[in-house]
């Protein structure tokens, strides 16, 4: 929706990115409509091939382990996957304990600073506020 770099990553890295999001989507064995919409949005932005999309949807049905996801994830793909994992975890308005733990594990795997997840959560809250302002503008757009 806003300028992003996910689509610029090499194909394999985009796949690894999406696989981690599939893991995050299923972490609490519950997939809300908000999380699903966010997952599909990120999948679209990643411009995966039809075959890759099919594999990712399989991963949604049979989620890989976090270790399997992280084994192929580093650098920019990893950072973007963490960012979008935070957004997806927060999509239903609540980040539960399992989600939080996984986010911290991903951050540690990527060697990010200790408060990275907190910072990203705060950033996400600001994003929700911005989007809410968009709704408010839409509601008052009648001439």
């Amino acid at each position, binding site marked *: 929706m806003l*300028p992003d770099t996910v689509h610029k990553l090499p194909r394999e890295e985009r796949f690894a990115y999406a696989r981690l999001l599939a893991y995050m989507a299923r972490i609490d064995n519950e997939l809300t409509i908000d999380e699903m919409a966010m997952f599909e949005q990120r999948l679209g932005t990643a411009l995966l091939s039809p075959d890759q999309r099919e594999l990712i949807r399989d991963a949604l049905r049979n989620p890989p382990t976090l270790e399997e996801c992280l084994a192929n994830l580093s650098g920019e793909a990893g950072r973007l996957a963490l960012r979008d994992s935070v957004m997806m975890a927060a999509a239903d308005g609540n980040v539960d304990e399992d989600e939080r733990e996984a986010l911290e594990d991903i951050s540690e795997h990527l060697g990010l600073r200790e408060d990275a997840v907190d910072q990203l959560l705060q950033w996400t809250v600001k994003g929700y506020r911005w989007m809410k302002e968009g709704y408010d503008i839409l509601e008052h757009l009648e001439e």
Partner: protein
Amino acid sequence: MFPDGLGQRSPQELLRYAEILVNIAAADGELVREEIAVIEGMMGRCMIHPESRVTVRTGFEQPIPLEQSLADLDQELIRYILRDAALVAAIDGSYDKKEIRALKTIAKAGGVSTQQLTDLLDWVGDGWKWYVAQREILG
């Protein structure tokens, strides 16, 4: 990026929504990868059916005229479209004259004044500022 009432719309309405986004992206010439990525993301967010997405992609080459896609849509939907069209138009960092013209056409169809359109474009600018802050966090 965030889910909203678009998910409650009919498949036909969502198809029109996506067609208009393609039209906006193509307004300044050929569609670039950034524009395609953002449209694919928006189609994903609304969970447009995969077969409908294939139909929308055919418009990448030959976009459907804006007036045709806008015909008979209700104003609430047109305003959602205007919001997301503004985001698509901004994706390359600026608004082209043709994009502005197309946005004005959508605004008119949605009963939105020029000042309100300006407010909406300012809101898009605020979103850009929010979005770039993640780069500092991620290093």
